[in-house]
């Protein structure tokens, strides 16, 4: 599909791919069947200025809504991850307006009432489940909203962990909730105030403060680039099959 011109010779690679019809915002295009929606849209001649980010299924910019002929259901997917299907009707919905509450995080303590106060609309949820059905990451959105209504922030943080903040849940919400912003607050509160602190982190910080690694760091700093590369390449790696009791030969900094 691509043609590159070289000074001395011309290389032409041709890939045979079956073309299938898709409809982008109502207009029909013939695109290779193996492409993702994002590639197909570009193949059709569109250029992304926004509505496209990491292309790796994480950033949440490529949320796409589509339908299939003869089927009432609404389908969703990430444009960079979902392969086109014949006759799909699609549009990208890269952004959906939702208000994120303003708060000073350090003044919060991780109480359910703090979420209730910032997002009272939480209580307008009717459990219609449209959010869960539309989530391209298969997050059980309705379930984390339920958890928050009863004050279980940790549960909500766990359920919403895979959320990529694409906003499709908010686009379909009967109660007009900004679910993904509420979940973000829940994860922040859970992480900062409600889950146990990592004890080894404390020990490690204390070690750093007492200067345990200063000498080692200084010796690295003193190396030239080549020496640094060599040291990096020759470092001892933990074998993939190593058991729990594995330790490196040089245990100076353990």
């Amino acid at each position, binding site marked *: 599909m691509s043609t590159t011109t070289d000074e001395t010779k011309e290389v032409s690679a041709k890939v045979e791919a079956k073309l299938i019809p898709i409809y982008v915002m109502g207009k029909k295009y013939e695109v290779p069947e193996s492409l993702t929606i994002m590639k197909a849209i570009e193949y059709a001649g569109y250029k992304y200025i926004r509505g496209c980010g990491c292309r790796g299924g994480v950033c949440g910019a490529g949320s796409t809504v589509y339908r299939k002929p003869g089927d009432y259901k609404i389908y969703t997917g990430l444009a960079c991850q979902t392969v086109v299907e014949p006759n799909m009707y699609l549009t990208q919905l890269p952004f959906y307006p939702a208000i994120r509450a303003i708060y000073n995080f350090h003044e919060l303590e991780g109480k*359910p009432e703090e979420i209730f106060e910032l997002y009272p609309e939480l209580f307008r*949820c*009717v*459990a*219609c*489940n449209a959010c*869960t*059905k539309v989530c391209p990451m298969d997050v059980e959105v*309705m*379930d984390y*909203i*339920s958890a928050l*209504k*009863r*004050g*279980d922030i940790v549960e909500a943080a766990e359920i919403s962990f895979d959320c990529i903040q694409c906003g499709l849940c908010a686009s379909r919400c*009967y109660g007009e909730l900004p679910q993904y912003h509420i979940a973000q607050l829940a994860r922040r509160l859970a992480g900062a105030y409600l889950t146990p602190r990592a004890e080894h982190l404390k020990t490690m910080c204390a070690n750093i403060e007492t200067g345990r690694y200063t000498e080692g760091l200084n010796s690295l700093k003193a190396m030239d680039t080549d020496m640094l590369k060599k040291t990096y390449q020759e470092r001892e790696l933990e074998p993939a099959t190593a058991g729990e009791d594995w330790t490196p030969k040089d245990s100076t900094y353990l």
Partner: protein
Amino acid sequence: MSISYYPGCTLKTKAKNLESSALAAMKELGIKVEELDRWNCCGAVYSLADDDLIHIVAPVRDLIRVKERGHDTVLALCSMCYNTLARANHLMKNDEEKRKTINMFMDEEPDYAGEVRVVHLFDYLRDDYGWDKLKEKIKKPLNGLKVGPYYGCTLLRPKEVALDHPDNPSIFEKFLETLGAEVINFPMSTQCCGAYQVLGNPDAAVKVSHEILTDAVAHGAEALALTCPLCDYNLGRRQNIMQEKIEGSPEVPVYYFTQLLALALGLPAADCHLELNRESAVNLLKDKSYI
């Protein structure tokens, strides 16, 4: 019989005293319940519009969870949850057209046709467990506690889900008698506390709640027992506001029915989370040496 327990939105936080005392009491009585592992808020108020089914989806979803679990009964402690679940169940059982629409709408869930039985702890104790059996289990009867049973609305109305006669009920009296308490009947025991009007018209809610408390006290009650976190808020927690706004408002200790049950069963006060009750409620229990 296998019973699912449905807590409802408020019982894990502000009405923890209702849940923890009930769970401890049921354990003591040998009533085995299992909390649904996935449940959503029932919506608290049942939709009263003939053409509105979306607000019935939430309680039906909970009933489906019960059925999925293979349980035949779901038990609620909060009377608003009981009412909403029971009415949704009644609809799914008896209205074929609406049942079809709701089942079709919830295309991600299995169909439901009202197969589950919805009970409140009250009718479970009366119809399944039995007052006599309960009486045998009472270790510390609440002798001398003059308590008014406050039914509120949703256990008794509308008729299709009423636990007892809407105007002349006796189930709460029977329950308190079994615990050994002295039951104080008062005319306003079935009058509404103002419910959600605490949001829309808070003064109106304060006024009716004040009437109820005054009536109970006038008939000799030294405390009130109730079943609903919203009643508890209007009649209990908001007594401070009432006392600010209406001169001569009484201070009335208010308890969840399950707290009195747990104490009468001889369970430790810690199960009752009395820190969530009014100070006067704790003091009265101390005065009477129940705790």
